[in-house]
């Protein structure tokens, strides 16, 4: 694969954005789990387990929406 300078810069910026997104996602999970999981535990957790946490969060959001209960 041969990239020119502009493409390399774009790729690096993309990687930086993705890294930020991963961090932000983990911090959001810390918040959703109400401190039940720390950031360092999430960082060490397998990616497949993190998607399970995502399912739990989405399910809770859905339940809160259906029941009309506040979800903070």
């Amino acid at each position: 694969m041969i990239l020119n300078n502009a493409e390399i810069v774009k790729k690096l910026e993309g990687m930086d954005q993705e890294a930020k997104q991963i961090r932000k996602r983990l911090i959001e999970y810390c918040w959703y789990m109400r401190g039940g999981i720390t950031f360092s535990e999430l960082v060490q957790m397998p990616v497949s387990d993190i998607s399970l946490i995502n399912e739990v969060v989405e399910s809770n959001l859905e339940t809160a929406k259906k029941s009309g209960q506040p979800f903070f």
Partner: protein
Amino acid sequence: MSNENPNQEQMKDFLAQSKPAGNPLQQYMRTPQIYITLPSKGKYWDPGSIEIPINGEVPILSMSSLDELTLKSPDALMNGQAVVDVIHSCVPCIKDAWGMPITDLDTILIAIRIATYGENMEYSSSCPECKEFNEYEIDLKRFLEAKVDLSLYDSPVVWENLIFKLRPQTYRITNNNNLEVFEQQRIVTVVNDQSLDAEIKVQKFNEIFKKMTELTMRNITQSIEYIETNGEKVTNRIYINDFIANSDVKAFKDIKDRHSQLDNSVPDKTVHTTCPDCQHKYVIPFTFDHANFFALAS
């Protein structure tokens, strides 16, 4: 008398104890997702760099978010450290991935990806006929199951009364060589872009050409495990380098030809595709660009 508040000291102790870094339970947080047999079966690895289980099956763990972040670090990807760190994290049997034969690299990376994101990988390509951009899904298991034939390394190259025993290069050597080639390519771009005198440009290109020839020579010599003559095995790198630099072209060509044969014995990693729009059949080379390979599923 210390000015430090005793409560502050207690708090420091508490924080030190509650710090999760270096948790001895960390190794139990992830369990192996798949087991693989390495193409090399543990042969050609630097001594102490791998501990192969008795059954020969190497356990592979899923990547963690920390591994995902490591693979988003451009500098670490560039110098090879990201790949080494992720391998150490996901393949506990591997103690020093720098000492891994390059023939095992693709298998290990594919296995890590399967263990993390599953067997299917999405990829996209543009049809060369109708130029339509389409998304496909590929089963990575077929790359993992493709047999890598390393038997050619067991039959040495014979030239006159010399026997050349070859071995696959380690990741450390391949990575260093790739960095040097990259550096030369960068210099070519700089020289081309600059408004230099034609004479200086020629001089610069001659230097690059000389360096690239040296790299090719080094690439060949680094793949020689030993040269046997009259029952004596020469393993000293200085002697081997000296011999290759001053040897008959025929000897060099024979070793280079064997390298080409070895390259051809690596299973084909292309994807045969049919464009859903115009039904045109075409082949896409499947490249293991680490930056993309682990990014597509995340």
